[in-house]
Structure formats: structure tokens, C-alpha cells
């Protein structure tokens, strides 16, 4: 199955706000992925994981890209499979998140009503500055292409 297989539904969602500097990393990466892979649907930019409800329904794969702050060098890209971490605290979890209900709870909610995606991958891009303002900081801006390439590979690898 290829990323363009019409039977396979792949969605990508960038969480974050581009008016909060590096919080815009998620939407920047998601947009880049959707531009590279025509069959991938870009759901974002989203402000809240609850916005995924109804949009990621019945996807085979949902890739959620969000800025994170774990202490790693800015621009570091990390990937977790949400099913592998759901329900337990994650070391270095994405704490810089503007979102009231966590992503794992939203996935549980979607599955409780029967239409959650089969698999959710969370791609974190380490941010540096989350203050008010436009534009990613240089290290994060440089990481956007790499992160998008990584997401494209993940989509290709997921079968």
C-alpha cells in the first residue's frame, strides 16, 4: 500500500498557534507534509485536540505534529505512538501545549464512540520561544523540512 492508496486514509494535523512563535512548528510541518504528499489530508492548523473529533474519524493513520518543550536542543524531532504512551505520564511529555483535554483523552473519547483513528503518531518538534510573535526561531525553522521528511517516511512505513 502506498501513501497514495485511495483506500487508505491518512491525515496530518498541526497543533499550535503561529502567533506564539515556535508554537507554530506543528502547522508549519503539517503544511509541508500535505504539500509533498497529495493524498494526505491536512486537518490543521488546530488549536485544541478536541478539534480532531469528527475530522480524524476512521483514519488509518493520524499524524499529530506539535511543538514540545522537553529540554532537548531546539529543533529536535521526537516521535511517539500514542497507543504506547496513552494513560501514563510520559517522560519529557509535551508540556507546552495550549490544550485543555490531552490528546490521549481525545483518542480515548473517539474510540469510545467508535470512530477513532486506527493509529496515532505524535511528532514533537522541540521549540525554544513560545512568546507572542510571528515566525519560528532559526533552529526550529531549520528543523521543519527534516520533520516533514520524517513524517513522510512514517506514513510510508505504516502499513
Amino acid at each position, binding site marked *: 500500500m502506498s501513501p497514495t492508496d485511495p483506500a487508505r486514509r491518512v491525515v496530518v494535523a498541526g497543533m499550535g498557534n503561529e*502567533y506564539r512563535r515556535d508554537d507554530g512548528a506543528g502547522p508549519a510541518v503539517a503544511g509541508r507534509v500535505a504539500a509533498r504528499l497529495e493524498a494526505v489530508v491536512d486537518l490543521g492548523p488546530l488549536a*485544541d485536540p478536541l478539534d480532531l473529533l469528527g475530522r480524524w474519524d476512521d483514519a488509518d493513520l493520524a499524524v499529530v505534529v506539535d511543538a514540545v518543550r522537553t529540554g532537548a536542543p531546539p529543533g529536535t524531532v521526537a516521535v511517539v505512538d500514542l497507543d504506547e504512551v496513552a494513560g501514563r505520564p510520559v517522560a519529557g511529555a509535551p508540556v507546552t501545549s495550549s490544550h*485543555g483535554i490531552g490528546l490521549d483523552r481525545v483518542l480515548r473519547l473517539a474510540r469510545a464512540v467508535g470512530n477513532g483513528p486506527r493509529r496515532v503518531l505524535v511528532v514533537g518538534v522541540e521549540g525554544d520561544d513560545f512568546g507572542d510573535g510571528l515566525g519560528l526561531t532559526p533552529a526550529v525553522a531549520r528543523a521543519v523540512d527534516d520533520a516533514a521528511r520524517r513524517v513522510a517516511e512514517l506514513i510510508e512505513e505504516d502499513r
Partner: protein
Amino acid sequence: MTHGSARRRTVDVEGIARVEGEGSLHIDVHDGVVADVSLSIFEPPRFFEALLVGRRAAETPDITARICGICPVAYQMSACAAIEDACGTTVSEGIWDLRRLLYCGEWIESHALHIYLLHAPDFLGCADAVELAEHDRAVVERGLALKRTGNLVMETVGGRAIHPVNVRVGGFYSAPDPAAVAALAEPLRRALDAALATVEWVSGFDFPDFQADHRFVALHHPDRYPIESGRVGSSDGLDVSASGFADLVVEEHVARSTALHARLEGGLDYLTGPMARYALNAGRLPGVARQAAAAAGLGPVCTNPFKSIVVRAVELVFACHEALRLVEAYEPPDPPAAAVLPRAGEGTGATEAPRGLLFHRYRIDADGVIETARIVPPTSQNQRAIEADLRRVAQGSLDLPDDALAWRCEQAVRNHDPCISCAAHFLDVTVDR
């Protein structure tokens, strides 16, 4: 988290759950008396006001839509109304109707989200919507279906549901295809049934016995329930234009918050939002919504903020019914936007966001470049009223253990559906006693 001595106790809650965004809540109790209550939020509208200066007036709907992921249409509509006011633009009835339809989509989406996923769990002993879904899947499915219908309306009229792209000053870039609009009728009929079931469902909840004596402020309109236009009225007789209202609102900087707290001239606090809209406009609801309200036991005015969920459900009925009416009457406005010719001046626009009155005021120069911008969202107007509720709720609940007290205070905040995501990112609750 609890700290404190016999005389003074502190409870910290890391993030008020199910409030959109971030902020913090501090309650100070000394010798069994609530001495101080403060709800602190960070407010990006301030940042956006600065960002807008020097930009073109035509950019305001797109830029201000990004203030909030939950109510972008409200920001777009108030921005358009303000710029059109400044430019002396007259917009056709057909365009106003289409705006109202788009706005109904946002009300449906936002109210369904708040009722089902954020507020109802408070009354059902569920920690959150996930637990509610595991306990009663059908009811959450109904809420999500309502939310989807709201999104569908926004996508059809606005181009997409989050940060709609079809809105411009003067109207729309293009009028939606009549067949696409007609296709909304069936989902909206189902949504209307679901909304009626919602009123019945929430009216059966157990509500704390609590009355608040707020001054209500909302738009009002002679012949319809207010959404996208109207004059500003109050429960104590105010009746002014949007511009007149903006002149009356005084914003005070409060040290503990980047937010400005709004009051009316003379230091009067007030509340906007569903309870205020309902109190001032219940008689203009369509029959189906009035009947649902009566069956739910709502009088002409609701003064128990814990029952705001019932008022919100009645407004959900109204929004579905109104959207259906507009869909059935739809004719594509031609042209889809009025020409907006820049001129030097000032303009104000006020509309009813799901959470309450939102007004924008801009001064522009002769080339249409913004010189000053003022954006006053409902949450900053409601902040003092929410704090007043909190003070009384906390005082009446001091016998509760810390966890339960913090939870009750969180509920008191959620009653008003504050949109702190317009704002910032965590809501920490602290109780000192």
C-alpha cells in the same frame, strides 16, 4: 495541592480542566472568610491589537480569526462590522443572512462542545467527557453529531470550519453554491431534534441552589434573537449603539493578569453571554425554542449560573432552527460582497460570540491602514462577574474538603464557558485559607 495552617489554607489545582485554554485562579481564605478571589488570564487580543496597527483594514477578518480556534467567526464578524462602520459601507440583507448562517454554525459547534464535552460531566459525576462516553456512549455521540453539523455549516459557508477563509470585509469572496447550502437542511433537521433532546437531558440535572444578581448586557434586535447585529441593551435599561457601548466600557489593567478587566462607566460590573442574551431576548426566540425552555422549567430570566447549560441548550435549539430557516430561504447574494471604499475614520462592530458580546473598534486612515485597534472579548467583560460568582460559591462551600472545593470553583468558572484559549495556556487554581 494543599498548603496552610489552621487559619490559612492553600489549594492548588494545576489547570482548570475543561476550560478553553489557560489561566489561574486564586482564592484567599482567612479565618473562614473568603478574602480575595482572582481569575488571571493572559490575553492575546492585546498582542493582536498591536499587530494590527499598520496593517490594512481588509486584513482584519483573517488576522483576528486567529485569536481563537473556537470562535473565529465571532472575531471575523465583529471585525467586518467595525471596518464597514468606519468606511460607511452598507451591506445587503442577503449578505447579512449568510453571515448569520455562518455564525449559527459556530454557535452550534461551540455550544455542543461546551454542553457535552466540557460542562455536562460536572453534573453527572464524571471526571470528563471520556468517562461520560464510556458510561453513556449514545449521549456523547449525539453531542459529537451536533458539533459536526455546526462544522459542516461553517465549512459550507466559510470554506473551512477552523479559521474560515471565505469571509472578507463587505461580505464573502464567493457565495456558496445553492445545492451545497440546500444539502445542509437534512443534517440541520436532525440537529434540531438532537438539540431538543439536549434541552430535555440537561434540564434533568441536579443544580446547586445558587442565585447571582448580575447586570446582564447583550445585543438586542427588534424582531430577532441577536447574533450578528443589534444595539446593546442591559437588564437595567441601557440601550445604545455598538459605538455608544464601546464608549461606556472602561478597561482597567489588573496587575495579576495581562488581561484588562472591563466595567461600565461608573464602575459597574456586568455579565454577557447566554444568560444575558436569554434574559434580554427570550421573547424573540422561535416558538420551538420557547416551548423547549418552558418545558425545561426556565422562566423568562435565569439567574442560576449553574443552569446556564440549560440556556445554552435552548440557544442550541434556536441556532439549529435559525440555520434551517436561513438554508431554506437561501439565495446567493449577488454580489457576494459590498465594495468597501476606505476613508479616514473610526468604526465599531459588536456581535454575539457563543460566550458573549465581542466588540472591535478601529481607527483607519484615508488609505485604509489601521491606526488604532481595540478588541474586547467576552471573557474580559465577564471576568469580574465570574469572580463575583466564585467569591460566593467559595464562601458557601468552605466546609468542603480542598479537592471538592477546588472542583466546585472550577465548575463556577465553567458555567460561563470562558474562552481563555483566546488567551493562554494553563489555568492553575490556588486556594489560600
